[in-house]
């Protein structure tokens, strides 16, 4: 008796997929959304306070965004290096992934991971493995928008 799975259980791929969807536990959407909202909002608040601090020093609001981003990247990288970022993001999810802290985490975690394969062939080549597409598509989109805006 050599029968394919579909014949043994008299089930099609589609039927099985329906079975799977019913069995998969529902993510705690309410809790996830709330924690993401609160943590993301908290980071935004901190970001604003940092901007306020720098404008107080004489920066214009748009100039102040630069050191604010730099500080967040530093904090994201530090938390990743200390091994706490993933423990926090287990709860906060998108709240820490979407802001620039998530970007910093993706680069830092990749750099740490591939250190074992050397500085050039490991860290250098692989540190943008996760952030690469964000950078590529971000730059390309900016270029296109910039060209369109220059023409209009």
């Amino acid at each position, binding site marked *: *008796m*050599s029968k*394919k*799975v*579909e014949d*043994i*259980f*008299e*089930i099609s*791929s*589609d039927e*099985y*997929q329906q*079975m*799977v969807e019913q*069995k*998969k*536990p*529902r*993510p*705690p959407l309410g809790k*996830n959304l709330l924690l993401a909202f609160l943590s993301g909002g908290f980071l935004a608040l901190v970001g604003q306070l940092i901007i306020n601090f720098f404008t107080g020093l004489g920066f214009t609001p748009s100039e102040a965004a630069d050191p604010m981003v730099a500080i967040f990247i530093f904090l994201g990288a530090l938390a*990743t*290096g200390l*091994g706490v*970022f*993933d423990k*926090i*993001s*287990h709860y*906060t*999810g*998108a709240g*820490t*992934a979407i802001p620039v802290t*998530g970007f910093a*985490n*993706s680069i*830092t*975690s*990749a750099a*740490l*991971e*591939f250190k*074992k394969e050397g500085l050039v062939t490991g860290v250098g080549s692989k540190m943008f493995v*996760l952030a690469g597409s964000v950078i590529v598509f971000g730059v390309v989109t900016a270029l296109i928008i910039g060209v369109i805006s220059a023409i209009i």
Partner: protein
Amino acid sequence: MSAAKNGAHTFSIEKPVYLSFTGAIAGPKEGKGPLAPDYDVVKQDLKLGQKSFEKAERMMMKEACDLALSKGNYRPEDLDYFIAGDLLNQITVSGYSALNYPIPFLGIYGACANLTQSMGLGALLISGGYGERALLATSSHNCSAERQYRYPTEYGFQKPCHAQWTVTGAGAAVITADVPPVRITTVTLGELADLGMRDPACLGTAMAPAAAAAMVYHFEETGRDPSFYDAIVSGDLGQVGKELAIDLLFRRGYNVGDIYNDCGTMIYYPHQQVNSGGSGCAASALVVLGNLFRRLSQGEINRALVVATGAMHSPTACLQGDSIPALAYAVSLENETSQ
């Protein structure tokens, strides 16, 4: 002929082959789980003083092998084959571990079904008269698997609740023609099954059909009922996959609910935050070569069916749009003195 083939998948291992000695080396998280007392050694960290997780995994496999050999007072040269596999590309852990054992090496890949694939192959070779003893090994490591199949270990992505946790551990076994009482009595070799699952975070759902199919082949080709066994375990379907397997088997008329469990769900406590449960070659290896082997040897249970399961998950194939096929191999273990 010493091994008789029943049907397309199952072999009766007629010339005796025994699961004689085992070595089970577990990682820290596994050492805090419910089956910890049955592991030979529990490691306290994931790197073990090595420069990489891969090197640490190699150390664990070597330690498991050395332990199994020493329990039987064997030198490596006393064995005819070293049959091993793991999850890493080019089965790196097994290949490099084989450097320690100057005997013919058969590297295998059945993903997380390596345990029963190696047992099946080894039993066929010995029962067929092509050797007296074989050393089998398999391992998995949470960090080495994560970095190869998914993301860097410090990457902060939020795991879905049906995700599984790769078990860190290594299991080794010496199978022989002459050291009872735990006998490998039948081997059922599965075929690839694919019902269109595409989610690499949910491999249990890809493997459940293969596990259920292997059990069906086994029951129908041996003429045995699930109740013939005191325990039936699948490798690493996880909670979601386990429920799917039970439902699929029910469609074919088999009620396995009471006797059947999944190693991935047995290896951790719920509070250890592993979502659907453990996965990896070591899920089945640690449970079977630790807990189940002890219970069989001592006569606490007499007959067990081990159905290790593997997803032939290729990250490249997934990105190219393919679904994830899976397979399973079943091996029946029986305590000879209770027959």
